[in-house]
């Protein structure tokens, strides 16, 4: 049994231009490991959305990625404002992103719904004023198959 691979990324909340860099890095690693295209895409979309959310809504945070043969787990943790109403936040199109962020093409309110759609499990833990932790899991559909 191979040991779990673990990667840790700090997601800088002050540097908008580097938002998304960690998910690109993870994509590259999954490719080197030989996971199939579909798995890689699901993981990188979900992680990208989570990363962007931390930058846009929570002044940054950290991403921990755990790679097992049969499952990829990502824990996105921030010390932002928290989410007051999770089921509202999960609705497609719901967004509190400010206008200047929308002008950049973010804030369509599809981030959380897409994270759910592209992953097998998703859990949101949030405490108002303290922060949010989103855990997502993607079960790999047979690595190295291409």
């Amino acid at each position, binding site marked *: 049994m191979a040991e779990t691979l673990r990667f840790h990324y700090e997601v800088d909340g002050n540097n908008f231009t580097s938002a998304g860099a960690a998910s690109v890095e993870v994509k590259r690693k999954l490719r080197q490991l030989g996971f199939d*295209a579909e798995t890689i895409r699901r993981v990188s979309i979900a992680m990208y959305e989570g990363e962007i959310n931390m930058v846009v809504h929570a002044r940054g945070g950290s991403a921990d990625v755990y790679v097992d043969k049969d499952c990829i787990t990502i824990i996105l943790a921030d010390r932002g404002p928290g989410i007051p109403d999770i089921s509202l936040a999960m609705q497609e199109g719901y967004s509190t992103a400010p206008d200047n962020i929308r002008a950049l093409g973010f804030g369509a309110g599809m981030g959380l719904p897409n994270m759910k759609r592209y992953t097998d499990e998703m859990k949101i833990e949030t405490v108002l004023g303290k922060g949010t932790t989103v855990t997502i899991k993607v079960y790999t559909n047979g690595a*190295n198959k291409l």
Partner: protein
Amino acid sequence: MKQYKHSVSLDLEKCKGCTNCLKRCPTEAIRIRDGHAVINSDVCIDCGECIRRCPYQAKKANFDRYEDIDAKKYRIALPAPSFYGQFVDLDDVDYVLQGLLDIGFDDVFEVARAAEIVTEYTRRYMSEQDISYPVINSACPAVVRLITLRFPYLCAHVIPMMPPIELAGKIAREEAIAKHPELKPEDIAIVFISPCPAKASYVKNGFLGEKSHVDYVVSMSDIYFKLIGVMKKNATPKATSQSGMIGMSWASTGGEASALFNDKYLAADGIENVIHVLDEIETGHFPMLQFVELNACPGGCVGGVATVENPYIARVRLQALRRYLPVSQNRLEKSDNEGYPEEILFPKDLEYRPVGKFDDDLTTAMQKMSEIEDLAASLPALDCGSCGAPTCRAFAEDVVLGGRSIDECIVYMRERIQKMVQYPGEE
């Protein structure tokens, strides 16, 4: 896998083993070994970036030479639209076409003409149901190769339509045979005048298992210097251009995309920008886009490494040349109002051919990655390049996967020596 034939190579004599190209290769294909650069042909995409960066002109693009083309053949020149932007004070493309005949070509077929036809078919393709948006252009071979090596999910987004160079080669041969029925297909030499090594590789390797309609690829700068000697301003050219604004606009970024009359497009140029855009598309970041035009060279094909003029100047010149031209001179027949001929489509699906997978067995791959991570964490993160790898991380991969010795990192070595001096006998 068949070895991919490249058109970018190294002049050992000139290479100083500096790290300029090493750092700029977008696919990390270059290493410095024994004092000079070495290119890993599995990952090189012939983008020409290393040629652009080498201060010693040690990296070169390999083309066919005009002199080597059998003069007994019926030689047809296929100038890329970017060619027209190379000439100072040119006010009519006809002078260029005449010049090509004057240096010895038997005929000329403008790639811009084929580009206009491809534009029409692309519009048709874009109006179909069930296509994966955004559609990505297939004209830049460096970009297409990059996608097949690195972007599995985007292979299905590349428009499955042969690039203008192919259609031009095909029509040129057919027209020549119609004009000269005594010619057999093999008596004809189709010669593309290329802005870049990527097109030369494209022709050498064929595409998706099919042989190209083009027989030779010569360098634009080579033909340019032959042409300026013979181009006369006073004599009226007999040749007449048959391309319009659209065909000519393919030479620079945004030309292909804007001709589709669909404003949901993005055009990006320069290989770093291209990679960035592809990463973003793959993460689903541009849901509103319908067409994405990507060109490996800065400014588009006018920025190819075999051009002579600065890409921005060439672009302005092309704009001036285009000004009084019809929008398009190559339209499909009115009656021909749906579908496209079989031969313009890819013969088969674009295949993802990943490179750089650590191992076929996932457990082994994971172990190797874990070793690489540990080693990379212990390296100084300077990315100085003196070990011959572009980054410390790439060096860690070379050590674990390629059997390089860790002692090749000079920073690591220096620290080790310092320790040995401070605490002798401990190692």
